Each structure stands twice: as structure tokens, then as C-alpha cells.
């Protein structure tokens, strides 16, 4: 018995480099790395799928606009309303526009846009590509000499990368308008004063850092959704898993990136 156990252990060690779980993690990391490398290779290589990019932009950007706008508007009103008591304690209610603009431009608008996009677009991409993988449509495309990566992944990632910043712009605008509605009702602040105070509080660094962040968020949402869908398996169960995993991973990655971006931006702000 003991001899047989020893043989089995030896065979297992020979099968896995470290352990089964660690090997899987490293393999997954390599696949992610290879996926990114392939994307950057494919993005500059013809044929360029402009029509598909536009279609995806429509799906990601235009179709998401109502949801994003409504969310942004509500965020503006709610955040202003919730911030008022804290400022009113110091008799500083007049600083609400400044506070709201900093919060919306620096953090709320990019994050809310990215989370909504991750929930709506990320899951959509994961499910779409997952079902294509499960139904072997991707394999069929490869067989028919169509580059499925270029057509499915590159177009979607490009669409999310460029549409999320645009959506963030809308979110900033709509959220600030929502905040103005609340401020003008309660503090009777004029629109000119409100706009003056909003732009007095923020800097170019705030705007540009937000835009750059949303590019990164969009890229992440696209890449995570495509990766999870492209490599999904296990039939119809895998489709649901890919969709779910796309949303969870994309949101988690967005928050991690937000944290890292904050550190980098603070470095620039201190300079």
C-alpha cells in the first residue's frame, strides 16, 4: 500500500508544476496575458471591423444612455441631499456646489458609469460570447477563415473603451444638473453662481484624470466580458457563469483600478 501511495504522489508531482490549484491560477494568468497581447496585436492588424465597432458602440453607448442618465441624475440629487446636513452643521451649505462637483467629477461619475456599464454591457458581452462559444459559433468562424477574435473581441473592447468615457461625460453633466435642481430648490442658488462654484472647485487634473480613468474602466469592462465569454465552457451553465463572472470581475477590477488611479493622481496633485 505504502509503495503504491508513493508512486501516486510522484505521478501527481510530475503532472502539476506546483500544485493543481496554483498551476490553474498561473495558467489563468498566462491566458489573460496572452489574451491582452493578442488584442493589441489584432487591434492594429487589418481587416478593421468598423461596422461592427459602430454597432457595438451603439449597443454600449447609445443604448446605455437612458439608464446612465437616469442613474446620474438620481446620484446628483441624492448625493447633494445627503451631503447637506453635514455642511449645514458648519453653516456651510453654500459650499454644496463645490463639494458635489468634486465628488461627481473625481469619483462618482466615472465609478457609477463603469459599474452600470459593467452590469449592463459586461454581462451582455460575457453572455453573448459565451453562448457563441458553447454553440461553437466561434469555432465555426475560425473554420470559415474569419478571425473571431478580431470580429468579436477587438470590436467590443474598442466600443467599451471609447463609449464609457463618453457615457461618463453625460453622467457628469446630468449629475451636476440633478445637483443643481436640488441646490436651487433648497439654497435658492442661481445657475450662474452654481456653475461658478462648480468649476471653482475642480481643476484640469480632475477632469483629465476622470477621463483617463473611464478609458481604463471601459477597456477593463470590455476585456473582462470578452475574456470570460470567449473562454466559457460547460454548456449553457457556462454561459450564465460567464455572464455573472464578467460582471463581478469587471466591477471588482474597476474598484481596484479606482484605488490605484487615486494614488497615481494624488502623486500628480502633490507635484
Amino acid at each position: 500500500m505504502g509503495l503504491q501511495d508513493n508512486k501516486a504522489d510522484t505521478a501527481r508531482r510530475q503532472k502539476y508544476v506546483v500544485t493543481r490549484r496554483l498551476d490553474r491560477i498561473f495558467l489563468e494568468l498566462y491566458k489573460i496575458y496572452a489574451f491582452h497581447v493578442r488584442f493589441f496585436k489584432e487591434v492594429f492588424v487589418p481587416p478593421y471591423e468598423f461596422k461592427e465597432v459602430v454597432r457595438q458602440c451603439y449597443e454600449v453607448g447609445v443604448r446605455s444612455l437612458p439608464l446612465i442618465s437616469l442613474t446620474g441624475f438620481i446620484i446628483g440629487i441624492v448625493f447633494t441631499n445627503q451631503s447637506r446636513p453635514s455642511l449645514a452643521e458648519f453653516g456651510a451649505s453654500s459650499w454644496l456646489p463645490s463639494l458635489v462637483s468634486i465628488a461627481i467629477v473625481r469619483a462618482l461619475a466615472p465609478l457609477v458609469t463603469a459599474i452600470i456599464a459593467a452590469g449592463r454591457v459586461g454581462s451582455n458581452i460575457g453572455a453573448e460570447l459565451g453562448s457563441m462559444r458553447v454553440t461553437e459559433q466561434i469555432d465555426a468562424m475560425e473554420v470559415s477563415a474569419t478571425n473571431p477574435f478580431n470580429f468579436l473581441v477587438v470590436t467590443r473592447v474598442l466600443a467599451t473603451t471609447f463609449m464609457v468615457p463618453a457615457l461618463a461625460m453625460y453622467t457628469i453633466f446630468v449629475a451636476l444638473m440633478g445637483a443643481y435642481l436640488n441646490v436651487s430648490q433648497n439654497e435658492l442658488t442661481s445657475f450662474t453662481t452654481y456653475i461658478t462654484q462648480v468649476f471653482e472647485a475642480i481643476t484640469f487634473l480632475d477632469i483629465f484624470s476622470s477621463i483617463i480613468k473611464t478609458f481604463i474602466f471601459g477597456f477593463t469592462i470590455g476585456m473582462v466580458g470578452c475574456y470570460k465569454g470567449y473562454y466559457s465552457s460547460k454548456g449553457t451553465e457556462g454561459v450564465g457563469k460567464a455572464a455573472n463572472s464578467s460582471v463581478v470581475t469587471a466591477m471588482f477590477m474597476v474598484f481596484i483600478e479606482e484605488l490605484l488611479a487615486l494614488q497615481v493622481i494624488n502623486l500628480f496633485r502633490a507635484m
Partner: protein
Amino acid sequence: MNTAENKRSIMVGIFVLIAIVIFVIGILTLGGQQKRFIESITVSTIFEDVEGLKIGNNVWFSGVKIGTVKEINFYGESQVQVVMNIEEEAQKYIRQNSKARISSESLIGNKIIEIFGGTPAAEQVQDGDMLASEANLNTDDIMKTLQENNKNLATITGNFSEISNRLVRGEGTVGTLLTDSTLAQDFKSMVASLESTSQNAVRASRDLSRFTNKLNTQGSLADNLLTDTTIFNRLEQSMVQLEQATQSATQMAQNLQQASSKFNNENNAVGVLLNDQQFANQLQRTMQNLETSSQKFDQNMEALQSNILFRGFFRKREKEQQEAAEEAQEQLEEQQQPIQDNQ
């Protein structure tokens, strides 16, 4: 390209365009607000302490934002050089002798640089100029002063508390005044006395008023003195004469003083008589000699009267004197006789 694709492309184009427009408007508004797109000059100043001033903080002149802080660098051993961007429009209002100080937008607001002062005689500030700085009271100093005031206030309130306690206990003059009923009675009587005194004062003032009315009565001395110009002129003349008399008296006194001063000198006869001791001695001896001589002269005269040659003369004169006396007696009696007859 079919219609659906066309529609999608147009929608995406509009979507992206609006997003870009929002972005551009935001950038332009922010740039306009922060005066990034207008011409500016650079002015610097040196502070001992910038109190947490940051790059991008505002620069104010007369309460108006005219620029931003561009650079903050260490200067010398421990000083700090602050470089500011100032709008060209505001350049003409800032003079080379203007000063800069660290201030804040509000009680808890951002730090700012406030440019103030400057005289019209001085030239306007130029690009690269350095303004003088003025140290300002920082929050720590204010808090220290407030702390000091708080301590003083605590001491004062403590003292007031002690005073009120003593008042309640009836200690001290005021406390006794508040609590002692005897003193209250005394106070009442004092007030009554004061009332009586005031009544007397009223009476006195009434009498005084009556007296002044009498003084003003026409024909009285006081009224004449005050109103009659003839009396006044006479009085004036009298005063002039009195003044002249006084001047004469003064002159006389001066003369006397001069004379008396001469008496003290020995260059005149009276001075010699009064002051020269030697002359006095001589005079005394002379007087003694004269006395001795007169005694001897008396003796000689007595001897002469006894002399047979002069005896007749002296008898004759004695007889004439006797006759004159008798005649005078008779005349007196004659004068007294008619008076007795009348009686």
C-alpha cells in the same frame, strides 16, 4: 450599408459628438474660470512662512481674483519664494510698492495670496518683479490670543462669582448695604435729608433770583453800575486817576528807594552821618566837647551877670519882661469882663 446600420452610425456619431461638446464646454469653462487662456505676467514674493499655501491657490487684489500661484520654492536658508501668475488686465492696478500677504478665502477656506497697498506715484508692476511681503496673523496666533482671552474671561467670571457670593453673604460695604436693614433705614433717612436739602436749595435759588431781580431794578446802584454810561465814564475816569496816583506813588517809592540807597553810600553827608563809624566817633567827641564848653559857657555867663559892668543890662531886661507879663495879664482880664457881664 442598410438603413438600420446607417441609423446606428448616425446615432453613435451624435452620441459621441454631444459627449465631446460637453467635454469641450467643461474645459473651456474651467479654463475661463481659472484664467488659463488669458495673457498673464509673473510676479514673485518671498515669505517666511506660507502657511500651507499650494500651487493653484488664488491671488486676490481688493477682493478680486486676479491670478493663481504658479510655483512655490525654498529660498535662502528657510524662506519660501512664491511665483504668481497675474492677469495682464490687473497689472495696471498693482504698483511696485504693493505688498503681498498670506490670507484665506474665508474662516475655514483655502489659503490665498492677497496683494494690497501701493501708491499711485509708484510705477505699475512689471513681469518678473518681486513684491514685498507682510507677515500675517496665522490661525495659531489667533488661537493663542483667544486662549489668553478665555483665561481672562474665566478669571473675570470667577471674580464676579466671588463678588456675588460675598454680596449674598452680606460681606463688604455693598453686601452690608444690600442685607443690613439698619443701613437701609439710614439710607432712607439720608434720602429724606437729601430731599430736604434740595428743597432748601430750591428756596435759596428762589431768593437768589429775587435778589438778582432787585439788582436789575431801575435806579439801583447795581443797575446804574451796569446800565448808566455816565457813572461808568466817571468810574473809568476815577480809575484812570487812581492809576495815575498809583503811578505817582510808585515813582515816589522809587525815589525814596534811590534816596535810601544813597544813604547807604558814604559819598554824601547823610551817608557819612549814617554809615561812617569814624565820623560818628568824631561827632560824639565833638558833642562831648560842646557840652563841656556850654557848661563852662554857663559858668562864664553866670560870672558875667555878677560882673559890675554887665549887671545893669540884665536888670533892665528882667524889668522889661516883668512889665510885659503884667500887661498881658491886664489884657486878659479886660477880655473876660464883658463875658461875665453878659452872663
